[in-house]
């Protein structure tokens, strides 16, 4: 019998999301910025699972939150594949990973 309130999980999720936002604006390396996005997605996933847990009665489990987590993970995988391909193309044309050096649409 766990006595952990669901609000604690939501608090942790909020803290992780905020740290992800701070990392997103603080970091200058485009790969690390991608990692910040993944951190934010993970924080939202934790909130989804916590809500799924919160809305489960003793007999049955509310699965919708966990199904949503699967879709978030699928979209994150697709985003990582396309995003890192963009990073590779960017690194080959600009010879740099600093986002401050990527300030022109056409190079």
């Amino acid at each position: 019998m766990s006595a952990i309130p669901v609000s604690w999980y939501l608090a942790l999720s909020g803290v992780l999301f905020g740290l992800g936002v701070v990392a997103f604006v603080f970091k200058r390396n485009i790969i690390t910025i991608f990692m910040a996005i993944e951190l934010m997605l993970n924080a939202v996933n934790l909130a989804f699972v916590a809500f799924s847990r919160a809305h489960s009665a003793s007999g049955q489990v509310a699965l919708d939150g966990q199904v949503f987590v699967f879709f978030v993970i699928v979209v994150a995988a697709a985003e990582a594949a396309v995003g890192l391909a963009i990073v590779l193309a960017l690194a080959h044309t600009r010879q740099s990973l600093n986002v401050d050096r990527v300030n022109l649409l056409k190079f």
Partner: protein
Amino acid sequence: MIVPLIVFFACALLAVVGAVLLILAHEPIHSALSLVLVMVALAILYLLLGAPFVAAIQILVYAGAIMVLFVFVIMLLNAGVEERTDWSKIGKWVGLPLGFLLLLEIAHWLYHSEPGTAIANGGGAPPAASTFALSTAIFRQYLFPFEATSILILIAILGALVLARKDQ
């Protein structure tokens, strides 16, 4: 009874420390490893929340596939120490205060949220979601979104191929 509490606080601490290390690390590979730390901590929290299949997927797909992709790109591009010389003024003077404002807002919202049924139910015994029930939900109730994600994955593969292709 005290064990889940200890596990929760250990994993929460691990996740927050990993996220802070991600921000403070100078090299991208250190950021990647601290992100793996966050993901493993979250997987243990999923187990605690009665979602063992989500925990397995978290380890397999996130800490496995996606992070391997990140580490692969970091190694391929030989990404070294991050440049800190000319980072944008907007990110410094607007972005960081807005980020902390968001943290404050979330804290305020959580502090003033009512402890309704959602939190009251949290004290009960965790009913573990069976993989059978989960697959039934995905392949019956959520069949169309599931098929849509397969098209999304196909488009992502094609996009990655087009982007990675050498210029003719």
